[in-house]
């Protein structure tokens, strides 16, 4: 289909936009429109669409702008909280990796020292296991490295547990 622009198209479009068609139109231009296919199409389509727009506007079922505004504020707030929560999740994952690293380190150190560091566990199975002092793992203190690893690991575990519990309860 060839594109055949008409030099009067802009003039006709401006008249239609101002609502000046056909009353404010010069007779020459009106004669041109009736003969020019491009301008005739423009007038027919624009008039039909403008009429349809004016008529259909009354059929709109508009809601309350206030409710929309508050819904938008809620959505913005939720998005902001989600955005801020992302680093927290990263911190939790990081803490979990630290914990795993420490646990693996601890187990490796025990394996290297021939599991002597876990003697206190065996003591629990002895007949005098019911004595309260036996529950305190004295063997644990024999290995300085184990203690250094175990205490931060337990602390991290406790912290992580607390955060996990808090988040779980918050979600509920």
């Amino acid at each position: 289909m060839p594109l055949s622009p008409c030099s009067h198209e802009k003039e006709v479009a401006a008249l239609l936009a101002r609502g000046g068609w056909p009353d404010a139109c010069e007779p020459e231009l009106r004669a041109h429109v009736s003969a020019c296919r491009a301008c005739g199409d423009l007038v027919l389509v624009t008039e039909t669409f403008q009429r349809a727009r004016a008529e259909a506007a009354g059929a709109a079922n508009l809601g309350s702008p206030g409710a929309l505004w508050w819904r938008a504020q809620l959505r913005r707030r939720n998005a902001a909280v989600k955005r801020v929560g992302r680093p927290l999740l990263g911190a939790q994952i990081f803490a979990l990796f630290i914990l795993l690293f420490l646990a693996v380190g601890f187990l490796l150190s025990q394996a290297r020292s021939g599991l002597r560091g876990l003697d206190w566990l065996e003591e629990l199975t002895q007949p005098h296991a019911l004595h309260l002092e036996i529950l305190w793992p004295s063997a644990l203190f024999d290995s300085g490295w184990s203690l250094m690893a175990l205490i931060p690991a337990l602390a991290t575990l406790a912290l992580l547990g607390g955060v996990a519990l808090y988040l779980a309860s918050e979600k509920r």
Partner: protein
Amino acid sequence: MPWESVFPNVFAGDAPRMAEPLMDSDAFAGFYERSAHSLWVYLARVSGDPALADDLMQESYLRYLCASRPGLHLAEGEVAGRRYLFRIATNLLRDHWRRPRPASIEEIPEEYLAAGVNPAQADSQDMLNPALARMRPRERQLLWLAHAEGYSHKEIAEVTGLAGASIRLLLFRARRKMARLLREQNPKGG
């Protein structure tokens, strides 16, 4: 204990910026009153579904308000805000068309099937609806934006995301096709 208080520094820096609204409630109410009708008609005419137009219009305003473009309304004026709103609506329409269509008639909203037509509107709707139904969605969008909303080619390009240079040709073809369909339906009126 609220968890925000556990990390005060994180929230102290971000909260004011995030909570800053695009425009206040009163300004939005005014903007809504002036733009909602034309946006709804655009969505209803281009989609051919008044119920869908209701949903998409609400979503358009929500996205407009949530958009991280603070100061848009004040700095660029209401015309730019309106154009941005139409752009959001156009994208939502496009997303809707990309989604799979409802498979059965039960899934089509009842309002759509029983859409009541005001007798006063019947003439232009009788004339325009069948013609619009035979146009492609993109053609309907272009025609509505150009001839009902009065947007320039540049503005249409901004709203639809099409290249500015192609708008003229696409619009010319769509207008010619629409005029032919309108004349076919109403030979005397053409």
